[in-house]
């Protein structure tokens, strides 16, 4: 009974959200004089041939992997009340330097891959550490410093690309680093399709999916099961109580940002190691900002973030077929924004309804166990971006 009810209330919020987003989107599509049902059909129509269908899955998964990593990076910091807007800059610096370093060395295949990953994580962690150090030693708000460092990363990466790390010849329209040698590329996972008897898609499923899964599980265990994770979450819930319990708040800021930055360093790698093999002026930008939305949508829990990333990727995939159906791709952006809003609003409504129902029950029974609403600490931890200005000083 309670289990059923719990599942019911867990699904309740997403259900409201989907309805809400659907209503808004329908209105938008009606406004341009198109048929909303077309949009629905397009969203779920993965293509005619089996190869096209698996390709659609590949497109979704390949997009979801960097989004997931971005969300994960943001969420780690959120969990201790730090707002890391700087993921964008962290992954940019990490990718350009990892691309440069990876192309410059020659190593046997597995080592080379590990080398590139390690360089990216180190660089991401370093770039995030600047934020942490400024906060801890100088009390600079992480919001400002990470915004500024995003721009600084943009300029620096551009300089690296056009200067020391330039690999493309003079005059080429796109400036890139040198290509990663074969040994530094991450093999795809297309074998999987044969294994489960699906048609081979056109493109390649990023092998980095595995790394992302490992990172997600590692972060999940770290946060939920370890002492360190406890310290991190405790600091997020109450910095003062955490300090009084013996947690070194400054140290936590540094460590958390290092982890967040290291994860951020991975964001560009699926593309770098699985597709483009170089960093260039046209390298995908903006994933760090999307990561914030994904993290918030996933309520800062790795599993939630995985779902959020898949949802975003699923919607992104539809951008092309929607245009075939004469619906502008901006509708996708609108759906994404609406869903983020709708989900969080729905969560609140669900919370209040649960509460009211509990109140109703209390009327008869004297002291039933107050069922805690679905917003656990995970849901609210992200809200605290305050109170940490003074944490360092």
């Amino acid at each position, binding site marked *: 009974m309670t289990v059923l009810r719990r599942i019911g209330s867990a699904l309740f919020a997403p259900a409201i959200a989907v309805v809400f987003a659907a209503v808004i989107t329908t209105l938008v599509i009606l406004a341009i004089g198109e048929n909303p049902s077309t949009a629905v059909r397009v969203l779920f129509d993965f293509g005619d041939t089996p190869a096209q269908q698996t390709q659609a899955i590949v497109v979704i998964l390949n997009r979801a992997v960097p989004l997931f990593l971005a969300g994960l990076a943001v969420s780690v910091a959120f969990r201790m009340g730090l*707002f890391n807007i700087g993921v964008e800059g962290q992954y940019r610096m990490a990718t350009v330097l990892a691309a440069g370093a990876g192309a410059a060395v020659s190593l046997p295949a597995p080592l080379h891959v590990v080398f590139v990953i390690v360089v990216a994580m180190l660089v991401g962690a370093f770039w995030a550490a600047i934020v942490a150090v400024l906060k801890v030693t100088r009390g600079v708000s992480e*919001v*400002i410093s990470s*915004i*500024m460092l995003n721009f600084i990363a943009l300029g620096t990466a*551009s300089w690296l690309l056009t200067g020391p790390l330039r690999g493309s010849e003079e005059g080429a329209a796109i400036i890139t680093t040198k290509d990663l040698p074969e040994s530094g590329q991450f093999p795809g996972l297309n074998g999987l399709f044969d294994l489960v008897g699906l048609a081979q898609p056109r493109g390649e499923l990023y092998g980095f999916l595995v790394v992302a899964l490992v990172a997600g599980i590692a972060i999940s265990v770290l946060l939920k099961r370890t002492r360190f994770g406890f310290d991190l979450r405790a600091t997020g819930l109450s910095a003062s109580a955490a300090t009084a319990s013996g947690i070194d708040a400054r140290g936590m800021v540094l460590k958390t940002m290092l982890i967040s930055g290291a994860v951020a360093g991975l964001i560009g790698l699926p593309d770098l190691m699985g597709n483009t093999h170089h960093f260039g002026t046209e390298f995908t930008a903006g994933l760090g900002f999307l990561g914030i939305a994904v993290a918030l949508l996933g309520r800062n829990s790795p599993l939630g973030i995985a779902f959020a990333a898949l949802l975003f990727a699923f919607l992104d995939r539809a951008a092309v077929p929607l245009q075939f159906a004469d619906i502008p791709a901006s509708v996708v952006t609108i759906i994404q924004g609406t869903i983020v809003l709708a989900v969080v609003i729905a969560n609140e409504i669900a919370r209040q309804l649960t509460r009211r129902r509990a109140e109703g029950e209390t009327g008869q029974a004297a002291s039933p166990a107050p069922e805690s609403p679905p917003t656990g600490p995970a849901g609210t931890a992200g809200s605290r971006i305050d109170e940490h200005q003074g944490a360092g000083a």
Partner: protein
Amino acid sequence: MSAATTTGPTRTRGPLAELFLGGGAARRALWILVGLMLLLSVVRVISGEQALTSASTFSTALLLAVPIGLAALGGLFSERAGVVNIGLEGMLILGTWGAGWAGYQWGWAGAIVGGILFGVAGGLVHAIATVTFGVDHVVSGVAINILAAGIVRFLSELVYVGNELGGGATQSPALSSRPPSFSLPVLSDGPDLLGDLADQGWFLISDVAGLLRGVTSGVGVLTLIAVLLIPISYVVLWRTAFGLRLRSCGENPAAADSLGVPVYRMKYIAVLISGGLAGLGGVALVFVANIFKEGQTGGRGFIGLAALIFGNWRPGGLAAGAGLFGFADGLQLRSRTAVVALLLLLALLLLAVAVFQTVRGRYLQAVLAAAFAGLSLVGFLTIDELPTGIVSFTPHLTTLLVLSLASQRLRMPKADGLVYRRGEN
């Protein structure tokens, strides 16, 4: 001189410190300004970079500071009422679209109204989400940023594509009239006395004249409004009953509620004002180019947020933050060589820090500062021109450096970012 007059509740100062630091924020700001001008003059004379203090640099700084400052002011209202506004960028975007749309039909005055209304609409979404539904402020803000980008593109496709007056998926037709601009008669216009003075190249005097002329000649109507809004915001927030109530919602909403302050309504009003001001920032951007152009905000909403925090959630402070950013940004766009001269400025500043820390007996910090001062000096002496990539982030690096060098006593409104639900605290 006896230091008998106690100034602060916590600290007593020596007479010298009293001269510089006493007398409230206004005097302190004045001293800082004087010090900065002096420093700039020195650097200008040594480096020969006239652009550092030319009237045009300052007028550019003002121009670039306006949208940032307006966004930051928007942030001020909402955060003083306890609602964190990461959605400033989105409201700025909505403002640009509203200004472009109204402006091509009804001219510049229409653009102002349109921009404000669109910004307010963004604020309304944020208020509904955060105040009524108690959604996390950051979530809502991020969602608004995403939404705004999508909506604006969508609306452009709807309204401008195929519009015979021009425009397209990413831009509006040109405004049907241009906003007026003003100059101070005699001083910066006609005889242009300040301009003449500024051209003399005299130490400090010409620099100050440059500053004054820069901020008094050819000032756009919106710049004027924005500059006036700074003291107005101060008066409204700190000198009226309305402001007190609004701020109380950001400090301790439960207390405010217990005294009959309509917390939810105040928050709504604050967030709507916030959206309107950010929208006005969008109008400022549109006025520069005379059209709406997608992507024209270029993250200025975030910079505005940074300016707000930089300015310690105060109108004067955020204006200083926006001004600093505008100055560095203008310099960066104008003269790559002048950016190199900033290295000299940095060296001098760090040297001062080193001396200061030595006096205070913090030798490690002193040595560090001195080392970096040396590095900057070497940089200044050896570098002629920096690559575009490096120059492009001059304003951001400057902001970051100023923040890390200045001692931080930032104090955000105490309940900022906390969802308030009646009866739950």
